[in-house]
């Protein structure tokens, strides 16, 4: 004997085309993405936020750039521990959100956390960070031993 009464599936409320326009948007965005950005997108689908991060270098510096639109400067934290740079923070929803008044909601609000292991040792006392136009740019000075050195070859 079944303990749960059989319920008629609610066929009448099934509307097959609702959500199709969303699907189309999602597909368009999927084709927009390049392969490395897909990982970030998957995190997003899982409800996590993984802002895109770039690492560049020149002779003396390592540059780390992170796309963080719409945060407050004081809500961003940067730390360096054993040559791993960690950027974390929180995007806060400033407006009061009422149920039903937002009909397109794609932005992510909440906490994020990104760590990157730096390719060469850096000087912990020479880290600069700037936040402008929604881009966080961290400049790190390479440690002396990590810099390329010209070695004079003595020919006798």
């Amino acid at each position, binding site marked *: 004997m079944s303990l749960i009464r059989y319920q008629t599936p609610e066929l009448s409320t099934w509307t097959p085309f609702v959500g199709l*326009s969303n699907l*189309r*948007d999602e597909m*368009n*965005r999927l*084709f*927009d993405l*390049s392969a*490395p*950005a897909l990982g*970030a997108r998957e995190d997003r689908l899982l409800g996590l936020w993984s802002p*895109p*991060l*770039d*690492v*560049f*270098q*020149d002779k003396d*510096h390592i*540059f780390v*750039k992170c*796309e*963080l*639109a*719409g*945060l*407050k400067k004081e809500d961003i934290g940067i730390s360096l521990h054993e040559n791993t740079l960690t950027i974390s923070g929180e995007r806060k929803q400033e*407006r009061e*959100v009422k149920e039903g*008044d*937002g*009909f*397109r*909601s*794609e*932005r*992510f609000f909440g906490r994020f956390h990104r760590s*990157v292991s730096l*390719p060469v040792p850096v000087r912990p006392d020479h880290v600069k960070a700037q*936040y*402008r*136009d*929604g*881009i966080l*740019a961290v400049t790190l000075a390479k440690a002396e031993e990590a810099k390329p050195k010209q070695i004079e070859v003595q020919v006798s």
Partner: protein
Amino acid sequence: MNTLTQTAQPAATNRAANGAARRVATVTPVANIHETAEGYILEAEMPGVGKDEIEVTVENGELVILGRRADKELPGEPLYRESRPLDYRRVFDLDPSIDSGKIKAKMEQGVLILTLPKAEEVKPRRIQVTD
């Protein structure tokens, strides 16, 4: 459906709109749209775009947002890259109830905030009951 619904804007229609075979790759910025009593608020994320690099145009009932990235390259060679050095573009259909002459735009740390007021005649209005 609703106002401000996004127009299908894949690369193919981009090309058609330009009238040329040149295909310009752009990124679609994520956006939130809220409705208030006065109108709509649209927020679009465009990190790397300053206030002088944004273009908002209204033409034929379409709202076009175009943001040019000023920070396409960092000094030095890339070691690891997730961001895309492309401009942002997105097109929305404008609801006829929006007073397109009164649209205001501002940039806040890479987020474009557009205020789209409704025309006076469509705003909710309290009607006094007379005796």
